């Protein structure tokens, strides 16, 4: 097999930031090549250079593709050569159908008139290929993220793809959806599609990748080839963070105190379909210093539960009681929930967690502006000091806290959201997929922060689709299915199998 792609000495600079510095990447024809590295290492940027998002001339270095020097001017240019990228953020139009999305910009039409029969028939073909059973006419917004991701791939396949780039395709997917996607990748490989995958889930990388390139601080650290020696997670981690990491989860002294929060008889109905009950009679407790996990499949209602508790941000006809320190707490709107000592770190940082066009500093202080102001006047110096403190503590990689959040890498954006809620100094912190899209090193840091909170006697509720993470971090795990809690396991008795069996038997 020969190299389909050679990226040589790629350097890309943004104002104040050298995102890529002489990066080398070589991808063989027909392989699955994994690109790994810490948050902000430059993975997405490298792929944007490759796919023409950053056009030739805006970077230094050379791209050799399919035996010739490639200078893509834009995405359509690279797509014409079979290079197709699926970005970290999905780019489907929610109110259009699957078929319409697949052929968006590439419509099956004769003289400008869309041929619906061909569109839907071709779409159905492609959906079969990616293993989706939905009708092509289904609106995309009625699909879960996992299926949307498959639609993105179907869209890529509709364009005669030779080199498919997937930027963190499984970050938002459940375990089983991820497996399906990885299987599909292997299937595509047998059909000769070369693929580059960016992922922070190293077990997945190990499973599908033929070779792995590690990027750190904008430079290539190493390339490993599975054919010559087996690739282990430990090897990847060492190259990623520059040191050996013996443990994935920091040690914590487990000691839990009195009951801090208690939710009783919680019922929630769907905000639009008034007859659909989303949460059914949920009861749970969180003790001081405890990390409580909520496990469940996508769509089990975990986010809905969390958001309905946090200031009734979701649902209607909510009934039930929230007790904090034994007293009924008023959580009827977000300001009151925050005042009562709750905080909720959303799973959807782009649309619910951040004001993207604002600076890091302004995002961090947003939910607790009072703490940096006197009688309504903001003390900007204090504000800067505070955000600098979080930048250091959370290791947010950025030239300054005055950088707009939109320019940060995905993982660093997540750290900004976390900083914002830590700064609000909650008693109970609800984390919804807190390590989604975060690299191993940063995960470790975030686990450390969770442990610190618990050591201070705060309560932490952790919603996660990554079971190893729940098992590694939590004192107790509730299992949720179809809007109800179906089981509770102490850390000592919990295992992936037991959690799954609780979900399935219900």
């Amino acid at each position, binding site marked *: 097999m020969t190299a389909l792609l050679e990226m040589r000495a790629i350097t890309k600079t943004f104002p104040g930031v050298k995102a890529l510095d002489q990066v080398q990447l070589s991808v063989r024809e027909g392989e699955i090549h994994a690109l790994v590295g810490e948050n902000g290492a430059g993975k997405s940027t490298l792929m944007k250079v490759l796919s023409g998002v950053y056009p030739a001339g805006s970077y230094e270095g050379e791209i050799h593709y399919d035996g010739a020097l490639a200078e893509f001017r834009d995405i359509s240019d690279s797509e014409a050569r079979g290079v197709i990228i699926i970005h970290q953020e999905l780019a489907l139009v929610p109110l259009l159908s699957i078929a319409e999305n697949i052929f968006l910009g590439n419509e099956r039409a004769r003289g400008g008139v869309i041929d619906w029969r061909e569109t839907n028939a071709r779409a159905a073909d492609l959906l079969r290929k990616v293993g989706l059973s939905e009708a092509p006419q289904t609106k995309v917004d009625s699909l879960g993220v996992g299926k949307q991701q498959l639609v993105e791939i179907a869209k890529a396949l509709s364009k005669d793809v030779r080199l498919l780039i997937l930027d963190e395709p499984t970050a938002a997917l459940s375990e089983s959806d991820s497996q399906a996607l990885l299987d599909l990748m292997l299937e595509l490989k047998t059909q000769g599609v070369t693929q580059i995958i960016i992922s922070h889930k190293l077990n997945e990388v190990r499973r599908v990748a033929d070779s792995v390139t590690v990027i750190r601080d904008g430079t290539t650290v190493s390339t490993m080839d599975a054919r010559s020696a087996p690739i282990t997670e430990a090897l990847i981690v060492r190259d990623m963070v520059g040191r050996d990491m013996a443990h994935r989860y920091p040690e914590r002294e487990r000691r839990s105190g009195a009951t801090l929060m208690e939710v009783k008889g919680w019922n929630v109905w769907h905000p639009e379909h008034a007859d659909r009950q989303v949460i059914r009679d949920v009861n749970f407790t969180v003790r001081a210093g405890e990390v409580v996990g909520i496990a469940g499949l996508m769509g089990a209602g975990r986010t809905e539960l969390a958001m309905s508790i946090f200031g009734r941000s979701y649902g209607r006809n909510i009934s039930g009681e929230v007790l904090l320190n034994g007293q009924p707490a008023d959580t009827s709107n977000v300001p009151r929930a925050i005042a009562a000592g709750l905080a909720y770190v959303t799973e959807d940082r782009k649309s619910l967690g951040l*004001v993207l066009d604002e600076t890091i500093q302004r995002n961090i202080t947003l939910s607790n502006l009072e703490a940096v102001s006197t009688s309504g006047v903001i003390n900007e110096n204090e504000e800067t000091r505070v955000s600098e403190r979080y930048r250091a503590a959370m290791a947010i990689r950025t030239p300054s806290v005055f950088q707009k959040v939109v320019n940060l890498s995905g993982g660093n954006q997540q750290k900004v959201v976390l900083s914002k809620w830590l700064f609000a100094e909650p008693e109970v912190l609800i984390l919804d997929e807190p390590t989604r899209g975060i690299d191993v090193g940063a995960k470790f840091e975030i686990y450390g922060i969770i442990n610190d909170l618990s050591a201070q006697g705060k309560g932490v509720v952790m919603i996660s689709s990554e079971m190893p993470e729940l098992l590694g971090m939590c004192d107790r795990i509730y299992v949720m299915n179809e809007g109800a809690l179906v089981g509770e396991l102490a850390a000592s008795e919990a295992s992936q199998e037991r959690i799954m069996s609780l979900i399935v038997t219900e």
Partner: protein
Amino acid sequence: MALAEHSGAQTGVMHYLKNNLREYGLLFALIAIMVFFQIVTDGTLLRPVNITNLFLQNSYIIIMALGMLVVIVSGNIDLSVGSVMGFIGALAAVMIVNLDYSVYVTVPICLVVGGLVGAAQGYWVAYWKIPSFIVTLAGMLVFRGLSLWLLEGQSVGPFPREFQVIATGFVPDVLPASVGEGIAPIFGANRLNMLAFLMGIAAAGIIVWSALRQRARNRAYGIEDEPQVFFVARLAIISAALIFIMFKLSTFRGLPNVLITMGVLTVIYTFLTESTTLGRRVYALGGNEKAAKLSGIKTERLTFLAFVNMGVLAAIAGLVFAARLNTATPKAGFALELDVIAAVFIGGASMSGGVGKIVGAVVGAFLMGVLNNGMSIMGIGIDYQQMIKGLVLLAAVIFDVYNKSKQG
């Protein structure tokens, strides 16, 4: 990720200019337009009488632009301000001229009514999530109709002297006229309003002082700094222009009352938007409403308040306008909302909310004002004036978008 080093001062300056082109562009455009008209009108533009006029003519636009900026930053728009302005003028006229109410009763009532009008519209926008475009489009028709009804289709006036001074009055000099007259010859003038002159110097001093403070802060926190050349040049130009304009005013009748109103309001709103939690939250609301809400910001209440505020400012503008014309007419404020909105967008605010500055809106309004005034002096027909203004608006926004795409 490594910090890129700037190779030498040259690239630093270019780099800074590229990132801040918008602000300099606006200032530069204003100066260029003023110089242009100053030349083609043979110096009429910057005659003391005309400068005074410029302020009077544009005061109500600027006053409303302050409120409109807040509304637009919050992610909304208000199309009703022209009508509301006319309505309040009509209300004042009917109360004072027809019903013989005292000015001192009428003015507060008008301001409250303005607030209520804003509240009535803001309520639907904030709590019922009805798009502001639609609510205020309805408001535009309703209040246009209401002023017609109030005035019974007639012009009502004139106003008593004490009402007219709102717009046409001048602040009396602090020092006896003899002092000014004594100093005036030094500058080759006949008279000199010491208050205006001193205020000009004081204002320039304050601007320089706060810029220096900001610069010190930037230094302390390693924020990318304006290159020395620009900093000095910008401050020099702004201060010189300020002192020059105030000097010109002082050789005429001194400080118009509206200039004080406008100046004070501009300072207040700059402070409110840039330094208070309230202002910060409005930006967050416009930037990402859902995220703002989940951060504990009372987004509905803020939206509501933005409209109440707009209503009060539209009322002030309405009073100024009526006082200036010395009569209330059913056509007062007609299509003025468009000038106000244009000023805000020329000033760099974003249609989608979350972006925009008070100074920008004020400069944008002045830019439009100078264009209007200059073209009128030149005797350019209203037809061409409209076309040119339209193109200026388009150019400013294109410039914005282009700028943004280059940074991304």
